[in-house]
């Protein structure tokens, strides 16, 4: 608390105690939020042509600054803002991961040399698709630079989401994180109707799930008289046997959170949104939302509902098993690579849930490792997809990938690496991640869930490997897409994610050490 603030406020008859806030501990959030506000001002006052470079400086600068503060905060373990924000090991780890992935996502979104018309976004998202206005905007080379404030707001929301220690802050963060993503999903330059449909679906279903979350929070508040996770946990252990309100509350809260991680049966939005959204946004969203939503889910389950684990574990067992199986099986039938990856992300959510269900420090650590590994692989995967193109834009139909290995061996090799990692083949990060969650699950006695997981992995391996086979063991056809040489933006993002995928597969120990040091959630 600053001494300036401390001097006033105590003199009046109604005592008002100032909330104590450790501003440095939440500095990453403040930096990003401040940058987002500045970035809105840039949209308002900087002339059209100057906006992009200024925005890029703001975005990259603020993310790097926030990352530096996060690294400097390592070892911090405190609750601030009157119990609203918890800055502890897992929080900082997820902040770091979110910021790095956010930076890579920003680089992908900044790419301009892949599409001859400009970047991946519609010149004006408000113009009617196919209208004369739209062609006019394209011809004049307009850019929708609003994507940058959206990116920053979404990242801010995610940082708050994983750190929130009470349900109300968590809800606000959920909205701050989701609303920009809904908009970003509707801004694709090509196939705009598909993109707008994706945005609307995402928005309607997302708003619905937020309402579920809020209703669940209200139920838990009704039960415990507080929205603080710790207070709810205390009330749960004090008042046992008054279950129905709590059960309904937890179930509704879980609907809201499981929607965000795309677990079956709350996964229907995933394929449409992944397919319709601009590919850099899909990559950013697929990686970061998974981290943020699992971060919040883990915190709620471990901090607040740990005492009730016998109630929620069976529910999550079933959901985890269903998620793995449905995701893997349905992915086989997909012919569009973005849709296939959407179902793959559902299956991956199932694998992470196996670690969550373990409900042990080991389970937490394995889930965290899996999340980081998955995020890097995913953003790399979508980076490759932005580069594989034909005359109409990105060539997402699988048939167009046939023989790509012969046309562009390097890109095909990198893509194969990501596919192998997603399939969980040794020497890639995916293997270490899967091994971790399965080991944690066996330790807590969930052997049958591991069996389901292994079966699902085998099914999933089929469609991942099928893409590799398609690329290398079939001849290029006239339809085969070509790979566009990107600028430094995409190259850096792609290289970083490929390096991390191998590094975490071959030398996973350093990240495991960091996770071990991070410990568990603060109570």
């Amino acid at each position, binding site marked *: 608390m600053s001494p300036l603030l401390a001097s006033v406020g105590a003199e009046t008859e109604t005592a008002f105690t100032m909330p104590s806030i450790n501003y440095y501990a939440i500095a990453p959030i403040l930096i990003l939020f401040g940058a987002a506000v500045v970035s809105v001002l840039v949209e308002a006052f900087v*002339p*059209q*042509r100057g906006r992009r470079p200024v925005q890029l400086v703001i975005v990259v600068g603020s993310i790097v600054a926030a990352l530096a503060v996060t690294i400097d905060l390592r070892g911090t373990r405190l609750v601030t803002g009157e119990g609203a924000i918890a800055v502890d090991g897992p929080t900082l780890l997820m902040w770091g991961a979110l910021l790095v992935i956010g930076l890579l996502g920003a680089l992908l979104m900044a790419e301009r040399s892949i599409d001859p018309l400009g970047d991946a976004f519609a010149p*004006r998202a*408000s*113009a009617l698709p196919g209208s004369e*206005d739209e062609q*006019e905007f394209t011809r*004049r080379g*307009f850019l929708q630079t609003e994507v940058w404030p959206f990116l920053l707001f979404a990242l801010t929301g995610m940082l708050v989401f994983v750190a929130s220690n009470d349900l109300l802050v968590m809800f606000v963060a959920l909205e701050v994180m989701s609303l920009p993503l809904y908009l970003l999903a509707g801004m694709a330059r090509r196939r705009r109707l598909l993109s707008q449909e994706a945005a609307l679906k995402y928005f309607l279903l997302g708003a619905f799930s937020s309402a579920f979350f809020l209703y669940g929070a209200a139920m838990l508040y009704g039960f415990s008289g507080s929205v603080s996770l710790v207070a709810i946990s205390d009330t749960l252990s004090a008042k046992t046997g008054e279950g129905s309100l709590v059960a309904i509350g937890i179930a509704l809260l879980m609907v809201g959170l499981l929607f965000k991680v795309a677990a079956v049966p709350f996964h229907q939005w995933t394929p449409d949104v992944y397919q319709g959204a601009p590919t850099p946004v899909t990559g950013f969203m697929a990686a970061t939302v998974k981290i943020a939503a699992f971060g919040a889910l883990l915190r709620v389950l471990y901090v607040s509902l740990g005492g009730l684990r016998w109630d929620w574990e069976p529910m999550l067992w079933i959901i985890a098993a269903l998620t793995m199986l449905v995701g893997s099986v349905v992915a086989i039938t997909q012919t569009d690579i973005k849709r296939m990856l959407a179902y793959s992300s559902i299956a991956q959510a199932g694998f992470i849930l196996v670690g969550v269900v373990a409900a042990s420090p080991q389970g937490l650590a394995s889930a965290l490792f899996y999340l980081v590994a998955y995020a890097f692989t995913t953003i790399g995967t979508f980076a490759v997809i932005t580069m594989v193109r034909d005359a109409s834009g990105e060539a997402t139909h699988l048939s167009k990938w046939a023989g790509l290995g012969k046309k562009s061996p390097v890109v095909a090799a990198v893509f194969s690496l990501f596919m192998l990692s997603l399939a969980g083949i040794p020497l890639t990060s995916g293997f270490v991640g899967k091994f971790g969650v399965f080991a944690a699950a066996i330790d807590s006695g969930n052997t049958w869930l591991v069996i389901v997981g292994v079966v699902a992995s085998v099914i999933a391996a089929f469609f991942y490997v099928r893409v590799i086979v398609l690329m290398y063991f079939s001849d290029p056809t006239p339809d085969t897409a070509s790979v566009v040489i990107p600028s430094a933006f995409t190259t850096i993002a792609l290289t970083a994610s490929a390096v991390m995928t191998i590094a975490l597969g071959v030398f996973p120990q350093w990240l495991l050490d960091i996770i071990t040091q991070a410990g568990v959630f603060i109570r």
Partner: protein
Amino acid sequence: MTGSQFGLFGTDPWWLVILKVVAIFVMLVLITLFTIWWERRVVSRMQHRIGPNRTGPFGLLQSLMDGIKLALKEEIIPKTAHMAVYWLAPVISATMAFLAFAVIPFGPTVSIFGVETPLQLTDFPVSVLYVLAIASIGIYGIVLGGWASGSTYPLLGGLRSSAQMISYEIAMGLSFVAVFLYAGSMSTSQIVAEQETVWFAVILLPSFLIYCTAMVGETNRAPFDLPEAEGELVGGFHTEYSSLKFALFFLAEYINMVTVSAMATTLFLGGWRAPWPLSLWAGANEGWWPMLWWLVKVQIFIFVFIWLRGTLPRMRYDQFMKFGWKVLIPVSIVWIMIVSVARLLRNEGSFSATEILVAGAALIVLLLAVSWVAQSRQDRRDRKLADAEAAAQARGFDPMAGSYPVPPLPGQTFTYTSRRAMAQGTTIVQDPAAEVADDGRDSNA
């Protein structure tokens, strides 16, 4: 009866509540009848006419007769109307107009048949918020009335009306903030009590002026009576209403006028408190006298309403919205910031409030100047664009475009083109507007 929740309020016996309710109801109806007559007489004088003077002394019963006449007229309901909503809309409008008066203080505590009671129906800690809420529900009556008529003009009038009212409601809501800041309460009786030494209209003059502007917009009165702009929209939202349903809308409009005047009196002019020379007399603020002061203050506001109507032409819709959004709202917000700083510094005792408020007023003037310069630059750019478009049209003016010859409009020049050239379609229309549009800003919002 569990005793008082808020001062003497809520302790009245049931018969007194009914008495007060009936008194308020009758008073509002009478004020409405009087105001309609008064408006017609005053406007007549301003236009060198005499106005209604036949029915009753000075024509005072004219409005009553008009009301009876309306009741005896045939009611025409268009067959396109949505029946339930069409019936409900005037009821909402009228009911809400009456309801807003529940928290207006008319005077101090008096004794009625041996019971000590404040001259106010009721009050609670958020009564100003209640008035705003009721006023917002009143807008439903207008929108629904316009929508349910199933006709073009009422629909447009209703939409315009709602857009206008919500725009000015923001400015109105913001002007209250400074009052709450100084009064430390949202209860009307408390706010009147806080103005014992000095009226808020004096120390919070900008708030008062903003409120006065917003209240004219909020009641759809001239010069802001765009929803009923006869030249554009016939009668606005009540075009399709006739007979007593129309009378209810009319009644609601006049009661709303009284309500906003009463709110202005309560919040800014010391409510029922006697003005300065009268306040020297000790008995001026006791007993039933304050009701008279209150009535006089309200009547002054109503006279200003009439005066405005008799004097000013109607504003154009875009100018009106621009004024609301680009002048009233930013000025209110900046003013709130200045007032809060002034209040804080006064509490701390480091500066005198006057110094700060003078500095604040200077700041607002500066801000207005800046925004005026920015706006005029934008307007110039827009004009340039429009000129370029007009020039383009003029260059390509084709008298035969609509299949029969038309003369050129102002700004268009007639150039002779041979019939044969036109038949071959050689008239080339260039579009220099496109070059001007790309000035670093976006042409679509």
